[in-house]
């Protein structure tokens, strides 16, 4: 139970950080971390496939696309800083939500943990990721390499100009 709560808090924390971050790049990375924690929650509820796909598609592919996109517009973004005053209300809203969650979320997780027993064919993260979906990991490595090279290919030209 503590593990679930910790993951949930982490997911919420990263999500808020993604919204609050000043730099778009930090937002994209935080969004990827939200996906990682959500996929860990999936794994723990005995849904390794959902976890693996969340990890592959959201934390892997989408993040590379976001980071690539952010890198392309970074110079424009730095020129025009955004008015961010209204986002400072977010921690206040989050505090109110945390107090409500303290009362309501534990029973919700208990119910979910009960559903876990009904699900068959679960497995450990290692088994799902390494045993079942190993080729996808290779695809992820390739995607990360592609993302780095896309940035390296686009940046020198922009900085020269």
């Amino acid at each position, binding site marked *: 139970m503590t593990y679930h709560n910790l993951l949930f808090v982490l997911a919420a924390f990263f999500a808020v950080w993604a919204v609050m971050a000043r730099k778009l790049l930090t937002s994209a990375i935080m969004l990827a971390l939200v996906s990682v924690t959500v996929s860990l929650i999936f794994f723990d509820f005995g849904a390794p496939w959902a976890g693996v796909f969340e990890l592959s*598609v959201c934390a892997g592919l989408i993040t590379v696309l976001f980071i690539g996109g952010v890198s392309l517009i970074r110079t424009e973004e730095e020129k025009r800083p955004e008015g961010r005053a209204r986002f400072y209300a977010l921690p206040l809203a989050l505090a109110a939500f945390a107090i409500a969650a303290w009362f309501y979320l534990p029973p919700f997780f208990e119910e979910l943990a009960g559903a876990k027993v009904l699900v068959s064919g679960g497995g450990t993260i290692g088994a799902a990721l390494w045993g079942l979906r190993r080729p996808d990991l290779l*695809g992820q490595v*390739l995607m990360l*390499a592609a993302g780095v*090279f*896309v940035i390296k290919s686009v940046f020198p030209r922009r900085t020269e100009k």
Partner: protein
Amino acid sequence: MDKGLLAYLLIPLLSAVIIPFAARRRALLADILANVTLLAGLANIAWLALRPSVIQGGFADIPGDGFSLLLVGAVYLVALCVTFFSAWFMPEGQPNRAAYYSLLLVSVSAMTGVVTSTDFFTLYVFIEVLAVTSFALITTDESAGGIEGALKYFFLTFPASALIIVGVAVMLLSLGSLSFESLRIAMSAEAPAAAVTFSAALILLGFLIKSGVVPFHTWTPDAYQGAYAPVSAHLAGIVTKISGVYAIIKLATLLRFFDGRAQALSEMLMFLGMLSIAVGALAALRQTDFKRMLAFSSISQVGYIVLAAGLGTPLAVMGAVFHLINHATFKTVLFLNSASVEKATGTTDMDKLGGLEHSMPWTSWTSVVALLSTAGVPPLSGFWSKLLIILALWEAGLRGYAVMALLFSIVTLAYFMMMQKKVFFGKKGQAAESSAEVSAPLLAPAVLMCGIIVALGLLFPYFYTYVKVVAERIIL
């Protein structure tokens, strides 16, 4: 995943990572490393498939289904031609030179991943890697046309990715597995579940968009025309064939089109194939830009492969596989030649060109070989693949399609002859006066590919044995 071919994926990836570090002090090392990696891979594939003992044994010792190895060979061959050409084509001191080669090698790794994967989700992941690398490669010279082409490529192929991932999700829900094998077993059953066929149809639709088949072809001419010149050859020669057409052939065999398990899908695919042949050829007749005309020709030739894949009989699959390889060879020659013409004259507008044969004889005559092969003139390789496709259609009782396929082959010859006349033959245009033949290294890839076109045509019996082994292994 076919583990026997894993090295062909990992080694280019390793080189791609090393290149930026190695080329930090000497930019030339990027060219050398990329070319050596691809040449070594190609030599290794040639040793696996073409050593005398393997040929004498009727290619029975070929690892895996033989199809993957054949396609990995085609990927390495086209990529080697493109990297070799780029080494001399790219201006010295281009800031993103190392990243360009790294992206090319990552795209080779991704294509190897696509053809060796045995699972729909893995296939999707590698195809997305290919989309990201293609997007960056198209914009290499950052011209306005390149950026427009890249954006069109991205936005029009994005719905395709969405369809594929939805199809994958429906397949996981209905079939409980994503492996090719489980789809094959499900389709062999007496009454395959409708949801399974539906999911396969969604995936098929996604791949049809990715391969630029009519009516999903709008991104193709802009992407090919706007792309950095050697990248057009890479995209048209192999990338769209692997990211779209390969998957269509694979699905056609998995869905057992040959025994009518998914009759409606099979008929729809054949109709779209025929439509592509017709629309591509008729549109190519009206083009005035060299690269744009080649792009429409590419749409038309992909139509032949899709038509054969839709029919799905062993002979048709053999024709589709052979035409896919042939398309990689002749389209690479034609696109590389268009790049040479662009470098020599500064334009690809056919109305401004003319009489280039006198100043660029090698480029002119390699174009003639490639265009004759595309039109299906014997004894070049394109003749045999088109013959197999037309025979398969005739044998299946689809005589209307067979006659149409033959007629549009004549239209293909017509628009290519017009192109040859406008660009190379006839009166010397203004551009031809001041231009000279490109250097020998820029000609070498086109000459090599022409050699392969002639060799595949003349040594057809050997290649037929290989393709027959492939068709038997992937269908039965």
